[in-house]
């Protein structure tokens, strides 16, 4: 059949740019970007689609008509939370616990703050809550930790609470969170039914804690329900607009949303809060695919941008979900991929303490305004980007593909006045010092994450992305004893690419309270329940194939209060597996904490079960669309760059013109519009058939 080309499109809406990756049925991949439009994110998406149509010489209508699946990651939910500009929300909760979201388990005062700030104890305050106290309604009801009803839910209380919230407080959205609803959600269901009965015509958004999480922990679960209600209407509005714009152009494909769990759901059935961190989750999925294709067992993803440095870990292609991840300083209970951040990036400022003369690099950042000194927009303090420029790693005339020119003079001035002169070092030495210090801090974060996952840094492969990641990655790898760095061809749009490639994924985590010896029948019943639920969700999402289930358990020694998660090698338990899981755990635990830490005599308990249900969507492995052949044609002059105490003549290549299969020995720099790859002396870079760069350290 010689039919027209059909597309799968991945969109990632970031703070500045909306990235787009399109993949044809043949696996040909193309990417583009358009500025993000925060007032109505769907405009930016349409702009990106128009750009993409332009690249292919077709009209926007034609592109839209030829698109089978449009997969969409967005920051709509994150933005609404960060700016606290969500909808007017009310909360119905167990009477006596109306203050839960204000007490914040006390730890809310420091949640989401860097250690340096936590120490300033007299200054640090709690974050602004998502709703005022008088929109929280207590209802008489109580369920105990075994799920037994102790106090039946009071129907009059619910009726009064709903009426007050809707009629007097004028809420658009109601969150419901009752104690131990993770174990028995019946009372929450009663509230939903009553809202439907009374105000079914008012289009009130209802968010039940038990729909969002089946884990114990009322503070984070209630936050999740409230946050979901808070951002829900905004997320739905955005998706509605996008859907409408696409329909007008004749779109007849499927519109799916990316979730923070690393997979897709349909727009009608995704919980709005599940879209938190969907961009980075797309990146993790892309990294998982790449690790499978390249045969990398343990992968560290490191994303260095302007203000933050994000690290994720994949062991055997599997990621972990964060325990109570924090967004906009609020704890949540949602399966969101565990990606850790510190405030370190191109904009990070270096300073000398006037009393101790210690040089600190971060956590202060010059941000986008005024930005680094070299932007020449009023910044006078030296930043990491200024140092990268002075060290010759960045081309002043080819930053963002030449869209912004950088002032070497301003950068030097800032470094000289603030660092070099006080320290009695040269400008170059100072810049190199800043480079080393920030790299060391970043390496410390990477090491902590690797070790926390029970892996050994030297056995990991480093996947670097973000605007500055490939400049710094060699230093991290050397510090941590890693020998291989991969910079994906799709690195500038890594999240959009990952989203374009991703599958349906529904995840369920549920608290258990089992003590060994475990009952295989009980465990199998739990698995059956979870898998049935998940299969149903996938069916609702429009997936009609056979789901693939991945199962994990969290266990702990009997008296411990926190546990560790490990994958289950069995589909179901029999007597042997129920005993075997204990041995597996002891082994897993020893690997994490060393011999002697495990105290088997204390006995084991199982505290959580996790099931991932994957609904695979057909895809072809990516292919390079055009392949240049002559390395020398990729050369783009040379410049002096700083390595190990010397300025060396360094060849510069335009990365997109480097032929596949080339090996380039350091020192060299590979540049493309949005990525600069520094190949240090003693290392070499190899470009594979897909345009990925593999640096051997």
């Amino acid at each position, binding site marked *: 059949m010689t039919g027209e080309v059909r597309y799968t499109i991945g969109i990632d809406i970031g703070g500045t740019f909306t990235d787009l990756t399109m993949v044809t049925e043949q696996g040909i991949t193309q990417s583009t970007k358009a500025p993000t439009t925060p007032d109505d994110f769907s405009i930016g998406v349409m702009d990106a689609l128009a750009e993409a149509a332009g690249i292919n010489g077709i009209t926007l209508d034609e592109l839209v008509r030829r698109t089978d699946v449009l997969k969409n990651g967005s920051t709509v939910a994150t933005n609404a939370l960060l700016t606290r500009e969500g909808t007017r929300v009310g909360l119905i909760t167990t009477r006596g616990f109306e203050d839960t979201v204000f007490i914040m388990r*006390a730890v809310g005062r420091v949640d989401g703050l860097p250690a340096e700030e936590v120490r300033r104890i007299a200054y640090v305050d709690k974050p602004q809550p998502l709703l005022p106290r008088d929109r929280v309604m207590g209802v008489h009801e109580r369920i105990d930790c075994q799920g037994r009803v102790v106090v039946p839910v009071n129907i009059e209380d619910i009726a009064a609470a709903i009426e007050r919230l809707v009629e007097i407080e004028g809420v658009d959205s109601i969150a419901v969170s009752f104690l131990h609803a993770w174990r028995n959600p019946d009372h929450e269901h009663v509230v939903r039914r009553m809202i439907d009965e009374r105000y079914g015509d008012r289009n009130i958004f209802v968010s039940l804690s038990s729909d969002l999480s089946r884990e114990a922990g009322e503070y984070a679960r209630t936050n999740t329900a409230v946050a979901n209600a808070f951002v829900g209407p905004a997320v739905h509005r955005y998706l509605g607009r996008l859907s409408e714009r696409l329909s007008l152009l004749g779109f007849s494909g499927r519109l799916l949303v990316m979730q923070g769990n690393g997979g897709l759901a349909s727009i009608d059935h995704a919980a709005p809060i599940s879209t938190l961190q969907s961009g980075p989750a797309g990146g993790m999925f892309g990294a998982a695919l790449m690790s499978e294709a390249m045969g990398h067992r343990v992968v560290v993803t490191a994303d260095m941008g302007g203000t933050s440095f994000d690290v994720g870990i994949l062991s055997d292609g599997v990621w972990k979900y964060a325990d109570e991840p924090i967004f906009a300083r609020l704890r949540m209970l949602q399966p969101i991929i565990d990606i850790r951040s510190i405030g370190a990036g191109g904009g990070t400022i270096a300073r000398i303490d006037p009393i101790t003369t210690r040089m600190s690099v971060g956590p202060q950042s010059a941000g986008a305004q005024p930005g680094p000194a070299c932007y020449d927009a009023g910044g006078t303090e030296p930043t990491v980007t200024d140092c990268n420029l002075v060290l010759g790693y960045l081309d002043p005339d080819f930053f963002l593909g030449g869209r912004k020119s950088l002032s070497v003079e301003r950068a030097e001035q800032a470094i000289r006045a603030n660092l070099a002169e006080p320290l009695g070092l040269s400008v170059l030495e100072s810049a190199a010092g800043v480079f080393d210090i920030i790299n060391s801090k970043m390496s410390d974060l990477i090491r902590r994450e690797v070790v926390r996952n029970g892996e050994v840094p030297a056995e990991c492969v480093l996947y670097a992305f973000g605007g500055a990641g490939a400049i710094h990655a060699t230093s991290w790898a050397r510090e941590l004893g890693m020998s291989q760095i991969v910079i994906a061809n799709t690195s500038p749009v890594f999240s959009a690419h990952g989203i374009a490639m991703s599958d349906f994924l529904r995840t369920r985590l549920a608290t258990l309270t089992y003590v060994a010896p475990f009952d295989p029948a009980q465990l199998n019943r739990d698995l059956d329940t979870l898998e049935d639920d998940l299969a149903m969700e996938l069916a609702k999402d429009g997936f009609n194939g056979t789901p693939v289930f991945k199962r994990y358990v969290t266990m702990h020694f009997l008296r411990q209060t926190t546990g560790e998660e490990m994958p289950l090698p069995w589909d179901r338990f029999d007597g042997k597996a129920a005993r075997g899981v204990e041995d597996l755990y002891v082994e897993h635990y020893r690997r994490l904490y060393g011999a002697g*830490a495990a*105290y088997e005599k204390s006995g084991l308990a199982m505290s959580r079960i996790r099931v991932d249900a994957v609904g695979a969507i057909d895809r072809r492995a990516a292919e390079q669309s055009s392949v240049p052949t002559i390395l020398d044609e990729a050369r783009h002059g040379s410049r002096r760059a700083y390595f190990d105490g010397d300025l060396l003549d360094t060849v510069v290549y335009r990365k997109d013109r480097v032929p596949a299969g080339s090996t380039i020995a350091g020192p060299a720099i590979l540049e493309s519009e949005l990525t600069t790859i520094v190949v240090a002396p003693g290392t070499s870079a190899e470009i594979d058939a897909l345009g990925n760069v593999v640096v051997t350290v």
Partner: protein
Amino acid sequence: MTVVVDSAIDPIRFEILAHRLWAIGEEGRIALQRVTASPIVAQGGECMCSFYDADGNMILACSGHLRFAAATSDAIKRLIEWFDDEPGINEGDEFILNDPYVAGSHTYDIMQIAPIFWEGKRVAWVASSSHTADTGGVLRGAATEIYHEGIRLLGLKIVEAGAFREDVFKTITEQCRDPEYVGMDIRSRTAANNVCRAGYLELLTRFGADFVEAAGRRLIEDSSRMAREKLTAIPNGTWRSRIYGTYRDPMTRRAMPYQVLCAATKAGDQLTLDFTGSSGQLENDQNSTLPSTMAHIMIALTNRLFWDLPWSDGKMDPVRVIMPERSVLNCTFPAACGRSPRVGQYVVEAVSQCVSSMLFAAGEREDINAGWGSFWYLGGPGYFYGGHNAQGLPNPQGLYDTHGGGLGATPLRDGVPSGGQQNIPSGGISDIERIELQYPFLYLSRSHNIDGGGPGAHTGGAGTQRLLIAYGSQDLTVDFTPYGGLPHGAWGLFGGHPTGTGGTRSLLAPAADVSGRLGRGDYPVTADEAVASGWAELTVPAGNPGRIPVAEGSLLADFTQGGGGYGDPLERAEASVVEDLRNGLVSVEQAGRIFGVVVDGSRTLDPTATAQRREEIRLLRVNGARTVAPAHGDSEWATRVRFHEYLEAGAYGSGRDVIRCVECGTVVCDATQNYKQHVVRRELSLGELAGRRLPGDGEYIGALVEYACPTCAVLLAADISCPEVSGEDDLWDIQLVS
């Protein structure tokens, strides 16, 4: 910018090493928290990993409970003194120690300390410490000698030459009621030390032992230099504070007051803390050993003044401490000290009060908080449980909602409600759902405590109150203290009120048919409501026992401390008081009585009645008559130092230095005099202030003393006073040097 560079050490390598060292300690702490069996460690963060030089000086402590870091220096010095020759300190050894007369606060503070060897030489130490609430002995509260407080270890090798000593382990754990729990905690500290030691050895490999040693010295020196710099910026003078505590007479079990008295004298770059006048040591377990007191002094200074310094020993260099012998802050062996953290809390509060006031005089505003709350409940059931839960497992002893108390108000905003605990800046409290999975309780509420924060122009943050039912245990017990005492909670600053009368812990016996009433949907959420609705009645066990059984279905009412207020409550914006009313933080009664804010039935402000009520309160403060301030002719006022929200020192023209009211310009006294003795003093009964009686025959000891400007009646200070302990005095809290 002109700075002097210490050229002895490469600044870039130093910075990398410093961050790496911190990161290693964090990795160790993460390991410890995940292996431990203590909820207070895993979730409350009561633990610490820290590094020491070869002689035991602290190089760096990481995040966690500060008390442990401060204590361990002393422990290492003693280990070297006692055991270096025999049996020797060798590579691969790890010592376990919990003697509060050496280091730590009570026997529950357990330290595991490992030497680090490099090329055969001992170059450093690493320590991992945490709180393990079981060391055997008599149950909490009953000890009168340290011998009652369980196993006391003075440095046993739990790991010897790399081999875990199962014999030592078994011997220790089997002295305790809950060997599995204690065993898990020992293993958690070993795990943390393994992580830290491996990390430190990598540092030595990478940077070389000489460099690492020099860097350690530098960290200590930096800390010392920064501490001196901070002190230099504060005007010279003496600041005084007094915190009262309550203990029980061991014979009569009657409530008796005692005091911690602190005089902080700042001169140049030196700070002297003199605790002379603090009460003598007690005949029960409410005593602090010298190491514990020193550790708490360090906590206060680290949190309030030195928060941005490296956490190393150097910051204590410019600090001199004078401590009376045989006092409650420096008890003599073998005095019991199980409740030493409580005394320590008073030390923290006393030092913090002086420091906050000093910072104000230095012109700093952002880092001032009024008091964060001491342990201050005056009797009733405590929070150390015995017995078994529904699964038949021993109840994990303590339940630490005290880690979610309210924070003090600041010059710029109200205190944070349910904000934390000063010793553990990053700690928190547990989810009730998680608690109920472990303990035999069913909670009926956890909410902000009404009238729980100290009133002020900015109010202190509220603590929380909880009401719970004993649920699913056959043998639950809890520690009990007879009612009565001196309610000195968190101190207020510059006219802000202290807290201390904001709640009562109590045991309530239910009326018949608990499950029936619950089943009909009827349950109370506060103790007052439980009593008023006839759900339960307050009970006071006969004979003042130290521990009481808690029958299934009984109610326990529990609350945590609030923060102190800042400034005169009458200066609080009316709208803020109304908002507090709506948020359930203040009662209508307190709004009217203390804030002078009157509302109608729908909680809307009545401005006329409010203005009238506020004027009435002002007149009461000045005994019904305002004085008129004398005029000062044409001489111009020049402020020398604004040392108080409402007072400043300075002079008119070339006149002598005086203190005057910032609000109305009234000259109060000479700058070298105690302003409190030249303004209007008024005493208020604490029972009246509390608005409730203590259960049983319990009585409040002491009074609230207010000092107001004689002209404008602005409230300058609201102090707790107890002549029985302190004699009749007006504590001279700010004594400037001219």
